[in-house]
């Protein structure tokens, strides 16, 4: 038999026990509803690392007849020391009777040695009717802690804290719907404090979860890097007959091209969601419309990427470097005119073409006759910045989303400032270099790997900042 600690999540019905289990077990398939009594039977959520059980969370139904159960127990127990045995006898007596079904179900893991995680709703006032169930839990003699889950608001948290402190050694605030990853880890550490023997497996579990988080970041970074490289290099091609007029295909090809890119972005997002174990987000929640509108809404490009002035500045710098090479050859006789001219020409070109997405090209006669029309790749220098901005923002929301959340993904609520302005100088410089390579289609494999590393670094920094 395994010595891994078990934790029974217990409480009044409809106080968010299942939400807490869903968030702690990273399982977005746990049934959560506003309806009370959603959970009718206990369900185990074992946490295993390479098949080895670290701990087990047990979601239980809520107390339905706590007063009656306590009255029975009080009647049975003569001495304080008898109480745990009386609770055990209660379960044995009533288990198959059809009465006290919920109490027997939730007390069974506790009398078998599980720690108690008692959950209350901090958005509803404390009531004396809770005392009977807290008393029963105290009678079990098992290590316990209380979690205040403020489902709607935090108005009654302090009131609850005062009451719970009289029954539980540890009381924590834990909002299953908004809690960040590091706070989930903190709660697991707190579980470990309940019993000396539980500390080590919980610590091991916490370390493993931290590593899993890093791996999720790496995986998401790879997905995003691959998506961005694919999208930046994507070309829509069509073979047409020699007699056909290429211009008649222009609008269709453009539409196909844009749709293909939209699909690639959507596919990438779905993969990112999967990598953070959000398997049940509805498909409509992941469409591009939710994330700052359509991918090709040019007005949004300046929000997600560089604005026209920044774009021009970057191109001028690149043009000036090329011009400097000319000056170097001229041995100074050009009085840096090469750099000035190169910078001006590049900058002016980008300023004029800033709103253009891609070029259409007709290649020569094909070996078997006909012509090859191609649309793309996207030539706009801003495109990689826009894609990355959208993808990183999406990942931020997904990575921070607790698995208890069932509402729609609100992709627009936090995007208040341009993400590029928040980057420190060195990562920004690296990003500019990578985006230049992406725009120029230089060594896509190497660029993809470098980009993946860069994105992963950004994800880890975001996580660290949140924890700090």
């Amino acid at each position, binding site marked *: 038999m395994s010595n891994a600690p078990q934790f029974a999540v217990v409480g*009044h*019905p*409809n106080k968010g026990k*299942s939400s807490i289990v869903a968030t*702690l*077990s*990273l*399982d977005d*398939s*746990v*049934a959560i*509803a*506003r*309806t*009370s*009594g*959603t*959970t*009718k*039977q206990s*369900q*185990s*959520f*074992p*946490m*295993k*690392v*390479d*098949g080895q059980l670290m701990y087990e969370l047990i979601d239980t139904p*809520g*107390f*339905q*007849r*706590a*007063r*009656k159960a306590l*009255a029975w127990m009080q009647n049975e127990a003569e001495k304080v020391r008898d109480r745990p045995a009386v609770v055990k006898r209660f379960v044995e007596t009533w288990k198959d009777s059809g009465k006290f079904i*919920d109490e027997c179900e939730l007390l069974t893991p506790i009398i078998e040695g599980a720690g108690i995680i008692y959950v209350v709703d901090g958005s*509803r006032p404390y*009531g*004396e*009717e809770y*005392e*009977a169930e807290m008393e029963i839990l105290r009678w079990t003699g098992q290590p316990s802690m209380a979690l205040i889950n403020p489902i709607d608001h935090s108005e009654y948290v302090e009131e609850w804290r005062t009451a719970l402190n009289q029954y539980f050694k540890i009381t924590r605030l834990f909002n299953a719907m908004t809690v960040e990853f590091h706070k989930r880890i903190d709660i697991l550490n707190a579980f470990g404090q309940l019993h000396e023997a539980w500390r080590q497996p919980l610590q091991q579990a916490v370390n*493993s*979860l931290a*590593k*899993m988080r890093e*791996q999720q970041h*790496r*995986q998401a970074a*790879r997905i995003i890097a*691959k998506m961005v490289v694919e999208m930046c290099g994507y070309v829509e091609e069509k073979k047409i007959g020699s007699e056909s007029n290429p211009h008649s295909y222009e609008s269709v090809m453009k539409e196909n091209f844009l749709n293909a890119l939209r699909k690639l972005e959507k596919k990438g997002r779905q993969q990112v969601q*999967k990598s953070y*174990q959000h398997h049940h987000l509805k498909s409509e929640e992941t469409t591009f419309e939710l994330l700052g509108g359509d991918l090709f809404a040019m007005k949004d490009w300046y929000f997600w990427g560089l604005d026209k002035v920044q774009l021009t500045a970057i191109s001028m710098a690149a043009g000036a470097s090329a011009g400097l090479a000319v000056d170097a050859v001229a041995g100074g006789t050009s009085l840096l005119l090469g750099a000035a001219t190169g910078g001006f020409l590049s900058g002016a070109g980008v300023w004029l073409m800033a709103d253009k997405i891609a070029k259409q090209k007709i290649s020569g006669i094909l070996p078997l006759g006909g012509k090859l029309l191609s649309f793309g790749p996207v030539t706009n220098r801003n495109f990689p910045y826009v894609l990355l901005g959208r993808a990183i923002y999406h990942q931020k929301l997904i990575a921070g989303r607790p698995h208890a959340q069932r509402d729609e993904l609100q992709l627009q609520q936090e995007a208040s400032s341009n993400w590029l302005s928040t980057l420190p100088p060195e990562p920004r410089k690296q990003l500019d270099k990578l985006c230049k390579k992406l725009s120029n289609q230089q060594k896509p*494999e*190497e660029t*993809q*790997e470098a980009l*993946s590393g860069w994105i992963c670094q950004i994800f880890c920094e975001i996580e660290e900042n949140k924890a700090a």
Partner: protein
Amino acid sequence: MSRDSEIADMELHRRDRQIGLELAEKRGADSQLECWLSSLATADDKALLSQIESGHRLVSFGMILLGFLLGCLTVAGLFQYDGAGRVDLVWLLVILVVLQQLFVLLTVLAMLPGSSSPQQMLQWFSPGRLQRLFLRLAPETERVAIGQLLGRHQKIFSHVGKWQLFGWSQLFGVAFNSGALVTLFVLIAVKDIAFGWSTTLTVEPQAVLQLTNFLSWPWQGWLPAEVPSLSLVEASRYFRLQEVVTTTLQPELLGQWWGFLMLCLFFYGLLPRLLLMFFCRYKLRRAILRTIHYYPGRQALFDRLNSAIIETQAGGVDAVVQEPSIALKNLEISQRDFSNAPIMLINWSNFELAEKPFLIELQQAGRFSIKETYEAGTNCQLDEDARVIQTIAKTGAKVPVGILVKSWEPPLGELADFIEDLRAATSPELAVRLLPAAIKSGKLTQPDPRDIEEWQRFSKNLVDPWLSVMPLRPGSDDE
């Protein structure tokens, strides 16, 4: 890795982690990859590998054979000598040195990075393309296997394909020059060949000597005997109208060119091709390593090998969910009030009813007048609940009963038991109304509609026609 795309992520992680645990001591990425490949290699993979090897051997052998034969034939053709005339040195140098150097130059141009149209055109003339011809002789399986190696199915293999084709071209070149050298040696051994040079242009022997000295540069330091002398150059010149060979011209001199020719063939034919062949092998190896390094899914594989499988979810069994037995849309909140009739109020909410204004507020909200108030539920003792039931039963249960409950707390089994006991002790037709109320600072507030739905559902689930729900809302009397 291509096959893995069809396997679910978790299953893939399980499989690879198992392998990863077994090779925990292998730290290097390459050795891990090698072990991973060998542990997953199926009979088909091994067969594919042997097909690639056999196809590769076939093409390489074909290149060597064809190159060698062509080299033999070329030299045999150039050295056609009937014993009367002379073998023209100019032609020999043009074909064996100049032309070969030109081909080497074009090969180097084609090898340069990039894929411009001229480069693609040059590659089209590469002898490596003869591989298609040889593969026609091979079974279908070998053809497909080599096709995969040359990257016809995946873009990432394009560099491997490029350097493999160049490698075969150089192998062909090496074989050609080897064949030429062997044939030259045999011909020299078995025939007495007289070499000569001739041109219509006015070229002095000194100019030819300069050319031969230039060509002899690689070996003039250590094989000076094989550097043609002025006397040899002069002696080898012949004119169209001149008699074949005169005795005064020292005919034994005319055969001395063979050493020079063989060294020219070695240094300007065989050696560059050998160097290019080794360069192509180096580049091919680099391309293979690069392909492996950037192969899609490689990093993900290492993550799977080296990251523990963490399971936190309920495995297999679906979450047990009790669907609400009453659909929300069918719920109707009772619109009938008590029309200010007297009721017996059971306080199941533990609300403080001692305050008169609150009692008045309650009565106004429910349009009832409280005849009697009883305390039950919540923190009361169970025998108090029983006493309340007995008291109501004794009254004959003619006055409707209202049960005041906290709207925000979910209805519990205890209340259901109480209603059942009350019903059993009184009349099946006693009107019982659940009165969910929300209070704040001792005053009624609007209950949350979601909470009221919960009470409605509870009431319906009890299947009691005389049980209903009437939420108490502040100011109901004004409506």
